[in-house]
């Protein structure tokens, strides 16, 4: 066995000699990013490590999945809290009429007497508005004691007129719920006060299923291997959520038994895995989910850290790749009361697009791929400390870097900026090709021209940051292949948008608003997205960001039983357009690859 210490989290584990650092991290419960699931191809698991045996050992950068432990080792991780902080900091609850399905009744139950020896349950039942409630053994268990120890004053917690808890005394001023957003990359839990209707606080973390690969397909592949692998994935996400919930409970002095309901949104794969339902047939065509309707289960069935008899509600999905997160977006954007024709896009690895108008709701999902998350990009990274998030090209390159002044890599919003700027100044042409001829280079400002070069492998590249200004000590470049990768992602989103417009029979000029949902939509520079034709060319003022609309929708459902009905209706109304068998998709896709406006 060898000892491994992870810093700065300071966790130490012993693992058999020859295990990789990534495996050791898994055992220690420490997060290391691993987009390829440990195949050694994505490069995202890079960590600094040092031998623990000799004092003057040097620190080396290694791939955690490919470095096999032979001796006691110290591993340094950078904390990537910013990812989730970025995601949670955007939230605010829309104004809605508060009518949660959770209600509390404070009851002064009459004491029994010899003349009238009515059972405890019946005396209590008689005081409730709907006096015919089902007897629940689990609540009756401690009822006699609770009544008698509290002078017969109790509070009954009801969820849609079903009692879920009986609490001693008057607890009517405390009532909490959770809105949960399970993303493939990030999971977030919001603690909500159901009385005042406000958000108390939120916590997020990297989805702990991440060690099995970054995209849904790799998670499904793992789950498809058998019941124990499926259970492993379910445990991981629930374990992660429980960590978040216990943090929320502790910081806000809320007991887990005071959390009465949870509303969950996520893509269809994540919903399946959260419920422990086999997602295998979501991966191959025809991408069939096991269920589509809303699902309600008791928390104890899942082991979620809240009132065990409280309900966990997973919102309905629309199709295999249009999940309850999209339904959440539809709820929060109030698509049923929007004026005119509106387009909503959630840009991510899987871009979900909603087009609302002419009495219809059309949805599709388009496989943008991980470029927007910084994967498959040579120096790509998530939006965390050290990531270049904004790029401007003038006489030279100007950058904005998240939390710091030295760059480590580039995140999705930075990438879009960089490429849009490179096209604008002519480093690449709209087809995405580097302009390497001497006369083309001469037109560029000298400092910029000096950044365009051919790599040792003969590939053209652009130096964004010289080695001396980076954390990693090498030039941060964008390669021709990176640009191609971004074009594929851009092409998929733009083509999906065009197909929906065509399907509805409208032109982009008829669009009232384009709404960008999701964390990414908030950080992307609209000018750049418009400039490269990622979005239809409508006036920039009509492009608005709507924050983490999926989470927002979950919160609204938690706070209003009417919104829950609306969610179910919207999911039913929404038509799913399957792009993989749309005749025109391929042509649109290829046309949309160009980095100019081509709507």
């Amino acid at each position: 066995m060898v000892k491994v210490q992870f810093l700065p989290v300071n966790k130490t584990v012993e693992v058999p000699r020859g295990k990789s650092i990534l495996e050791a991290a898994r055992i220690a419960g420490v997060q290391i990013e691993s987009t390829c699931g440990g195949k050694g191809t994505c490069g995202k698991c890079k960590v600094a490590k040092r031998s623990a045996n000799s004092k003057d050992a040097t620190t080396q950068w290694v791939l955690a999945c490919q470095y096999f432990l032979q001796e006691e080792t110290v591993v340094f991780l950078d904390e990537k809290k910013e990812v989730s902080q970025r995601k949670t900091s955007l939230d605010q609850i829309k104004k809605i009429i508060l009518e949660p399905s959770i209600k509390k009744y404070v009851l002064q139950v009459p004491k029994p007497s010899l003349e009238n020896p009515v059972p405890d349950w019946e005396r209590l039942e008689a005081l409730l508005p709907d006096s015919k409630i089902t007897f629940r053994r689990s609540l009756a268990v401690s009822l006699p004691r609770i009544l008698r120890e509290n002078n017969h004053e109790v509070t009954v917690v009801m969820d849609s007129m079903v009692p879920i808890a009986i609490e001693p005394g008057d607890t009517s001023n405390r009532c909490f719920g959770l809105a949960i957003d399970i993303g493939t990359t990030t999971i977030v839990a919001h603690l909500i006060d159901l009385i005042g209707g406000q958000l108390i606080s939120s916590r997020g973390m990297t989805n702990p299923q991440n060690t099995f690969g970054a995209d849904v397909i790799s998670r499904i592949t793992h789950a498809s291997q058998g019941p124990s692998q499926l259970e492993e994935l379910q445990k991981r996400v629930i374990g992660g959520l429980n960590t978040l919930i216990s943090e929320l409970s502790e910081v806000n002095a809320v007991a887990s038994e005071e959390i009465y309901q949870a509303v969950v949104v996520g893509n269809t794969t994540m919903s399946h895995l959260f419920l422990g339902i086999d997602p295998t047939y979501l991966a191959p065509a025809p991408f069939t989910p096991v269920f589509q309707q809303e699902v309600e289960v008791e928390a104890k069935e899942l082991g979620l850290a809240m009132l065990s008899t409280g309900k966990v509600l997973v919102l309905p999905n629309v199709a295999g790749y249009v999940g309850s997160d999209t339904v959440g977006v539809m709820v929060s954007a109030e698509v049923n009361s929007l004026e005119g024709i509106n387009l909503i896009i959630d840009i991510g690895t899987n871009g979900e697009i909603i087009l609302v108008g002419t009495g219809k709701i059309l949805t599709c999902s388009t496989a943008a791929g991980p470029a927007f998350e910084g994967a498959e990009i040579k120096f790509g990274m998530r939006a965390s400390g050290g990531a270049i998030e904004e790029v401007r090209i003038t006489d030279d390159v100007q950058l904005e870097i998240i939390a710091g002044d030295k760059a480590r890599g580039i995140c999705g919003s930075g990438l879009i900026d960089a490429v849009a700027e490179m096209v604008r100044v002519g480093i690449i042409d709209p087809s995405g090709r580097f302009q390497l001829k001497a006369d083309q280079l001469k037109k560029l400002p000298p400092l910029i021209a000096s950044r365009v070069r051919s790599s040792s492998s003969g590939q053209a590249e652009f130096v964004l940051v010289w080695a001396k200004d980076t954390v990693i000590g090498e030039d941060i470049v964008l390669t021709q292949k990176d640009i191609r990768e971004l074009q594929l992602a851009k092409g998929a989103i733009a083509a999906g948008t065009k197909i929906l417009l065509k399907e509805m029979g409208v032109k982009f000029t008829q669009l009232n608003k384009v709404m960008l949902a999701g964390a990414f939509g908030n950080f992307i520079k609209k000018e750049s997205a418009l400039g490269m034709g990622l979005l239809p060319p409508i006036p920039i003022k009509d492009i608005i960001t709507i924050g983490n609309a999926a989470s927002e929708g979950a919160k609204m459902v938690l706070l209003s039983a009417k919104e829950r009905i609306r969610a179910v209706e919207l999911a039913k109304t929404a038509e799913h357009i399957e792009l993989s068998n749309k005749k025109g998709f391929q042509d649109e896709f290829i046309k949309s690859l160009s980095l100019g406006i081509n709507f």
Partner: protein
Amino acid sequence: MKDELLKALVNLDEEEALALVEKQIEAGQTPLEIVEICKNGVEIVGKRYSEGHYFLADLIMAEEILKGIMGIVEPYLSVDVPTNGISIVFGTIEGDIHDLGKNIMIYLLRSSGFQVYDLGVDVSPEQFVKAVSETGAPILGISVLLSFCVGSIKKVVDLLEEAGLREQVKVVIGGYPVNQTVKEYTGADYYATDVTNAIAICRGIIKK
């Protein structure tokens, strides 16, 4: 003039290329010679695509130009354009509907003289085996973009074995998740991630 045509093709200059072909036909150049230049041209375009210099739209453009040229040349062709006589069965594996990569491969293989049987997308292992057995093709190309579907390629290889066809056909795979590990896992003979390499592999197979 030959070089000029090649250059026009490679630079995707449609007008210039078509004009040159007209001129060359008038000047008495044989249509087969022109077809030969086109093949070389497409090969260079493919290479530039592999290097990332050209992209999908450029390949489509090349295809357009080629179609234009063939339109001019065909009336003068007394014989069919010769193929290299080698046939390839090609398709995207079961459960997978991605077909752009497959189509590009097929286009480039055809331009290099191969005779390609395109089985389309979502092709079951049984269909692949049936096609190999019916055509007697020495090469089977399988495209896979969804990592989930990699297992079905293994099934193709196993079924080929069972049918006693494994010896007569080389299995070449390619697509997003494909690498050395995937090749080994599926039991395929070769893999390629870029087109130049892919075509070189197919040529290499026949030479052996």
